[in-house]
């Protein structure tokens, strides 16, 4: 086990210990001890409830995340590179960015019924503007000297995007992906709360009605573990591969 992993483990253990202490010795209201939550986590995993809802939510998450990232990156680069488009759509972007999730969700449900497609569309509409804004910022900060180089050697559109622009956008992309997963998760909870009959959001709302913080936390932890796995096996390796050149 290498040192970064070890560090990470220590850090998680410390956090759990801290939480346990807070919950048991200070008896903070509504904060169940970590042990309790873990016990609950095991239970709902064993009885199949958690895997079912988690699976459903993850499917929604993956579909809407992929859609949002692809659409967002394309639009973001477009706006960043074309000042005229940017001037024109800047307003639309700002409006989309600030429409409450509630509004888009309601409208999607009304127009398309309480369907999967409506749920996913609602999430995508909420997430895309965030990706666009981040990527646009990155596109504006591109190194023109390298673009000129690509230009003079007639790289063409595809080579330029792949080898000159993409690597420079990468950190922005990572920022968008990381905050994006978290944002989608937040929105999906609302989407599922308002019009789905399954999924983590639906479940968490039920627990919330009962004030069952233990179960909410158990579900949250399950989700965090999944995100952690995505981070460990997808994002981190991607990032490492993309930043070997920084040594």
């Amino acid at each position, binding site marked *: 086990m290498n040192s970064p992993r070890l560090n990470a483990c220590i850090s998680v253990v410390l956090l759990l210990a801290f939480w346990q202490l807070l919950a048991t010795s200070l008896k903070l209201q509504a904060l169940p001890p970590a042990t309790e939550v873990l016990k609950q986590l095991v239970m709902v995993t064993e009885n199949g409830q958690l895997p079912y809802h988690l699976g459903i939510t993850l499917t929604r998450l993956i579909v809407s995340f992929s859609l949002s990232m692809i659409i967002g990156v394309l639009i973001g680069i477009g706006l960043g590179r074309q000042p005229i488009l940017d001037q024109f759509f800047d307003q639309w972007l700002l409006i989309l960015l600030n429409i409450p999730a509630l509004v888009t969700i309601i409208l999607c449900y009304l127009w398309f019924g*309480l369907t999967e497609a409506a749920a996913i569309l609602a999430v995508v509409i909420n997430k895309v503007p965030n990706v666009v804004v981040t990527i646009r910022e990155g596109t504006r900060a591109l190194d023109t000297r390298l673009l000129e180089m690509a230009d003079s050697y007639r790289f063409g559109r595809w080579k330029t995007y792949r080898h000159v622009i993409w690597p420079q956008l990468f950190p922005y992309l990572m920022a968008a992906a990381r905050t994006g997963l978290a944002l989608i998760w937040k929105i999906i909870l609302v989407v599922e709360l308002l019009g789905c009959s399954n999924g983590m959001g639906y479940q968490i709302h039920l627990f919330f009605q009962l*004030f069952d913080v233990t179960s909410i936390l158990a579900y949250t932890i399950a989700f965090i573990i999944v995100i952690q796995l995505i981070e460990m096996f997808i994002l981190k390796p991607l990032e490492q591969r993309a930043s070997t050149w920084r040594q």
Partner: protein
Amino acid sequence: ASEPFQIKIGVVAFGTLQWELAVIQQFELDKQENLQLRLITLANPQAGKIALHAGTVDIGVADWFWVSNQRTNHHSPLTFAPYSATAGALLVAANSPINTIKQLAGKRIGIAGGEIDKNWLLLQTLAAKQDVNLNETVDKVFGAPPILNQQLLQNRLDALLTYWHYAARLESNGYKRLLDGAQMLSMLGIKQKIPTLGYVFSDQWAHHHREAVLRFLRISQQAKNLICTSEQAWETVLPLTRSEDKQTQTVIRKRYCEGRIQHWEAADKLAASTIYSMITASHPNLFPKQSSTLAAGTFWDYTLSNSTTTKHPTILTK
């Protein structure tokens, strides 16, 4: 006179409690009982529950299932005194072919409140008696009540089980009431009027201020009666119903008044715990750490008999 006793009440904006408090203020009922009511308006019932737990309010409104659950799971000191028996209803379109529970099978039904909604649980229990497993045969659609209302209006649902004030709006739009909470209970053999919602407060607090709490319950009862009998009071309430249309207003008032609790005695409490046992028996995994019987102390030690409700008849003519 001594200083008026102050009570902080969590009120859901435009909820019926707000109607009552408006009437209490209009008729200065609180002054008569030497109470000072401080309203903390909140956007939805969940906020009210948080406020109760956080100790921001002394009294809030919730259902006794929840109170029992809190007592079992969180050693919560919360306790319950009845507030209203108005219950939700199952609605279908006027021309709907659905007339019986059996016909619900295979249909798309909206259920407000999700799978732990008490009416949904009752409906399932009822159906089970007719050998129908609703949970499996019905295409359930859970969702937020306003959205479900719209879905029914758009004919995207065949039937909708929803809260009473949403039901009232649909009713005045020509939708048919197939069943309501009280009917379901009576079909299950319970003749008493069982409260759906109640005042919820900490039992220690109530113990220390028992007199004041009783006075509060009394004026609340008076206010209810005023709303149902005095046009002057109803005028005050009207804007709070947030409904422009006469039809709806009438239905709302009717349902509201039907839901007044006239008595709350040992037999009523027993009936309530019977319902609890009935539901939990047929749904053993409804809650985490579910107990099969109602938690002790769920109902505050307080009784209401017919005589107390008309204690101040003079007010009506004021």
